[in-house]
């Protein structure tokens, strides 16, 4: 086997923050052949390099920025960057996918990966300017919002540079802190911002002016353009440019999976007060990521609120799930969360949990459903770890262990629920439970099959282990190619063809499925080594005890034994045992 491959830069940048030094090393091509890039490759490196049991906020944790062989090529939707580390929220592995232009810039700077180790002694930021690496002082930036930080650095360096930064939440090691880039794009989940914060690293600034070499570039490019025209910018995908993820609001409401008031119910009859049509009136422009094609980002200004978005998740959590219907407040919530460096999903879910706690009289967090201004204010308190924000910055798992209300703390392993109510899409309860980083909707997205296309019955546990697996396998390989979720029509055939054309080495359709499975397994292997098993693959009590009161899924509750059965089905499909543990020989086979 050769040690280099076209499409890759065949180069890893390793940055030692403690010693303020950088080294360059070849990419582990044995890993790349098994895990391709991005998500899969990052997890394989984490499995190799992160000692079991390390403190996610200690200097021994590492931050991995990982591209793939398609990054920097015109393969549509290929511009995303994996940002990975052990998660301070869950203790599991955590790989996030950030959009914007930072992914292609890292690749054009000459790297497949950048690995950050150790810890800066003083607040600083790292400048990666092609092969020139510099460690800069960030004393003046520390404490600033992520947006102001990016503005200052953008002014200093100019538009050729991409900036990743954290807000106060990341500095204060909040378990729901995110990393921002291009202002409005996030590596959002699992407290990845706190990993940067724990390393005293306020920002990463990247410029890349180099190139990416691929096999037979003229024919490869022409074929990519053909695929772009035939399979990406099609009528089916039109909604992404016109509406972006706001389109899901109607679909989820109609399907009975739009959560209402901390998942106590679903659907909102007044959803049109804050839907995509309303938000569109305030739109100023469209923006996609590098190498995009579809352009989901809606840049808008409404009152004094500005953001690129809001995405479905943020609309839901700061809208119906909080008992709020004011579009301006929803946008403001989104803007403030981004600026503070907070994940809108986890921060939002924690505040709406506090609203229910207060209304039920279990503990007075001083906030009730519908209190939009206070919700926005609470974000700042959480990010700064002040007042009531100190408790809420713990997230729903830890805060409910302290104050009660665990039965409606909507989380798995310490990661809060995304905005798809599983009682209206039963497989989703298992997707959340078995996801490699706690409750995540991107690992295996069941609502398409169970609700929107209605190709699988939503209110049954039958065959759901297989369904969750099939969807997870697909996303695991897709995200290891750095392909955005929005290219929904991509197939294993197209993936294999693109990889083959770009690298000049044959990749088969069958291999795509194999790699997808391997990626799921390596994530599980990492978590198993950290002590995770079946008892951590949980479902919030509310989902298995309270029937929904309204909407198309009215009356639905997932019986605990059905959830348990779906979980066992999934383990069986994966070849894991009854406790969700992987046999040692399975682990050995994927390394």
């Amino acid at each position, binding site marked *: 086997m050769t040690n280099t491959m076209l499409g890759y830069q065949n180069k890893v940048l390793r940055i030692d923050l403690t010693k303020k030094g950088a080294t360059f090393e070849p990419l582990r091509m044995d890993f790349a052949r098994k895990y391709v890039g991005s998500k899969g490759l990052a997890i394989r490196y984490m499995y190799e390099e992160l000692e079991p049991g390390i403190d996610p906020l200690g200097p021994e944790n590492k931050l991995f920025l990982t591209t793939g062989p398609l990054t*920097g*090529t*015109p393969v*549509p939707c290929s*511009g995303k960057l994996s940002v990975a580390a052990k998660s301070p929220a869950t203790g599991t592995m955590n790989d996030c996918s950030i959009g914007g*232009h930072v992914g*292609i810039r890292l690749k*054009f700077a000459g790297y497949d990966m950048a690995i950050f180790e150790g810890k800066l002694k003083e607040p600083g930021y790292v400048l990666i300017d092609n092969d020139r690496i510099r460690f800069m002082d960030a004393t003046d930036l520390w404490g600033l919002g992520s947006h102001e930080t990016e*503005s200052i650095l*953008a002014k200093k360096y100019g*538009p050729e540079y991409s900036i990743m930064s954290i807000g106060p939440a990341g500095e204060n090691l909040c378990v729901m802190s995110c990393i921002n880039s*291009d*202002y*409005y794009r996030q590596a959002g989940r699992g407290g990845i911002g706190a990993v940067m914060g724990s390393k005293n690293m306020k920002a990463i600034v990247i410029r890349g*002016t*180099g*190139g*990416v*070499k*691929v096999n037979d*570039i*003229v024919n*490869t*490019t022409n074929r990519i*353009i053909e695929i*772009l025209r035939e399979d*990406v*910018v099609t009528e089916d995908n039109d909604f992404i*440019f016109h509406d972006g993820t706001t389109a899901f609001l109607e679909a989820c409401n109609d399907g009975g999976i739009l959560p209402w008031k901390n998942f106590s119910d679903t659907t909102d009859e007044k959803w049109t007060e804050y839907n995509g049509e309303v938000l569109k009136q305030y739109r*100023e*422009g*469209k*923006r*996609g*990521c*590098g*190498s*995009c*094609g*579809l*352009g989901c*980002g809606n*840049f808008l*200004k409404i009152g004094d609120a*500005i953001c*690129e978005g809001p995405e479905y998740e943020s609309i839901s959590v700061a809208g119906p799930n909080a008992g709020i219907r004011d579009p301006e407040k929803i946008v403001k919530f989104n803007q403030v969360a981004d600026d503070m460096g907070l994940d809108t999903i986890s921060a939002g879910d924690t505040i709406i949990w506090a609203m229910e706690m207060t209304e039920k009289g279990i503990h007075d967090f001083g906030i009730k459903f519908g209190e939009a201004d206070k919700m926005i204010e609470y974000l700042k308190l959480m990010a700064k770890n002040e007042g009531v924000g100190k408790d809420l910055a713990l997230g729903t798992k830890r805060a409910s262990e302290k104050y009660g209300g665990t039965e409606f703390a909507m989380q798995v392993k310490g990661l809060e629920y995304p905005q798809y109510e599983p009682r209206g899409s039963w497989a989703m309860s298992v997707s959340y439970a078995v996801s490699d980083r706690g409750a995540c909707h991107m690992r295996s997205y069941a609502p398409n099959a169970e609700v929107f296309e209605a190709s699988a019955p939503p209110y049954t546990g039958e065959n759901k282990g297989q369904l969750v697996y099939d969807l997870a396998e697909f996303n695991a390989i897709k995200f290891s190619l750095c392909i955005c979720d929005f290219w929904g029509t991509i197939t294993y055939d197209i993936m294999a063809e693109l990889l083959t054309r770009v690298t000049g080495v044959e990749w088969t359709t069958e291999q795509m499925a194999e790699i997808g499975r391997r990626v799921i397994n390596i994530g599980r292997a990492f978590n198993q080594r950290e002590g995770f098993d079946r008892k951590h693959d949980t479902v919030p009590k509310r989902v298995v005890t309270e029937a929904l009161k309204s909407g198309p899924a009215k009356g639905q509750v997932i019986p605990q034994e059905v959830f348990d059965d779906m979980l066992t089905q999934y383990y069986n499909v994966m070849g894991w045992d009854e406790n969700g543990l992987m046999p040692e020989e399975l682990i050995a086979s994927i390394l």
Partner: protein
Amino acid sequence: MKRLKFAKEKCIGCQLCAQVCSAMKEGEYIPSKARIAIETCYDNGNLKYMDHFCILCGMCAKACPVEAISIGEYIQVDEEKCIGCGACAEKCPKHVVQIRDEIAYICDTCKGDPTCVKTCPQNALTFE
């Protein structure tokens, strides 16, 4: 004579135009060497468009002291004649001429069939 036209309301800032341009002209995906550079960024709370592409205005040809640049249906640079003096780049109102290794690199609209236009996913670039 057909020219590139740009409709910013359709542009998503994906830079696919520069990637395919560099593929066809440089043999690698290297936007920094492309004959077109259309990018967007956020600047002071606004979405800013930077649209550097050839509009076939002919300023480069007029500025050339050695008549190395000719304009027919598209621009041609005679590399034998070009002395890389940079007079064309200096006069280019769109700042899209590159001088490398004493040669001027100017968009030739892929000889009247621009790859960037064929690629532009939201049809922000047209050739008319």
